[in-house]
């Protein structure tokens, strides 16, 4: 099947649900809630509902798929924490969230990031905690249909700066910004 995103597209998802948990008992807590946890740090699992990021042996971020039908993250958020060794993180507010979608996503990133993000070395399901346009960022490779989709999470206070840098980097590939609703339309076509 062909790519639906010949030109790269940037979608800001900062309003979408996400949560983070950290602590020695965080893995166990999430597993008890039925979350599929990656084995080692800097790997991610993802599906139609949630992407699960393992950022360290004891830190996990959950990103609710922006096109998910309901709110699978709610039950995770509502579940009580064990008394010790699990702490909620603030990634809903501390980090802005973008998707960069399309064939040329790795080429766009090469203009702003010093880590090799070509699929041969950075396959779907891998994470790079790195610097993007000199802002600390988490890059997660997942797929959207047949297209490459990079989750980009960066300091929420730098979101406006970050968006500008990404637009500049995308320009030579004909990239543009898009709203979530437009994305939904495209993904659901054919």
């Amino acid at each position, binding site marked *: 099947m062909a790519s639906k995103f010949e030109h790269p597209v940037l979608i800001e998802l900062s309003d979408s649900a996400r949560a983070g948990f950290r602590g020695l008992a965080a893995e166990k807590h999430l597993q008890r809630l039925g979350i599929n946890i990656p084995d080692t740090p800097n790997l991610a699992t993802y599906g139609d509902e949630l992407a699960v990021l393992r950022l*360290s042996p004891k830190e996990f971020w959950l990103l609710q798929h922006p096109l998910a039908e309901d709110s699978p993250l709610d039950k995770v958020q509502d579940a009580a924490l064990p008394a010790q060794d699990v702490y909620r993180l603030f990634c809903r507010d501390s980090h802005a969230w973008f998707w960069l979608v399309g064939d040329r996503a790795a080429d766009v990133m090469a203009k702003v990031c*010093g*880590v090799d993000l070509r699929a041969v070395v950075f396959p779907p399901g891998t994470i790079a*905690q*790195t*610097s993007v346009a000199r802002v*600390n*960022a*988490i890059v997660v490779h997942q797929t959207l249909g047949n297209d490459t989709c990079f989750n980009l999470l960066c300091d929420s206070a730098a979101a406006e700066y970050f968006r500008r840098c990404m637009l500049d980097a995308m320009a030579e590939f004909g990239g543009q910004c898009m709203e979530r609703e437009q994305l939904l339309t495209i993904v659901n076509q054919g």
Partner: protein
Amino acid sequence: MKIMHCPLNGPRNISEFVYGGDVRQMPQPDECTDKAWAEYVFYADNRAGVVTEWWLHTPSGYWFIAERHTVTDDIVRTYDASDMFQQRIDFMVAGSDKEEQ
């Protein structure tokens, strides 16, 4: 640009890291002499050879330890700080029997 192998994140440009100084043993702050304390705070060995240093991977906020040869600038080995600091360190009120568990 040099590449450093982060124990958590793998090989990265050195620009992603911040140097945190030599790994040094703190003398017992309540018992050592002023001179020993001043040496700890102000003196650097500046050794030619393999030194043990703190490094921070800034994007992930992760401190680790690197062994680096100061003559060749080769990074010999990097590892998690827990390899070296395995036990909780406690300070006792002066006069009690021991300061570290």
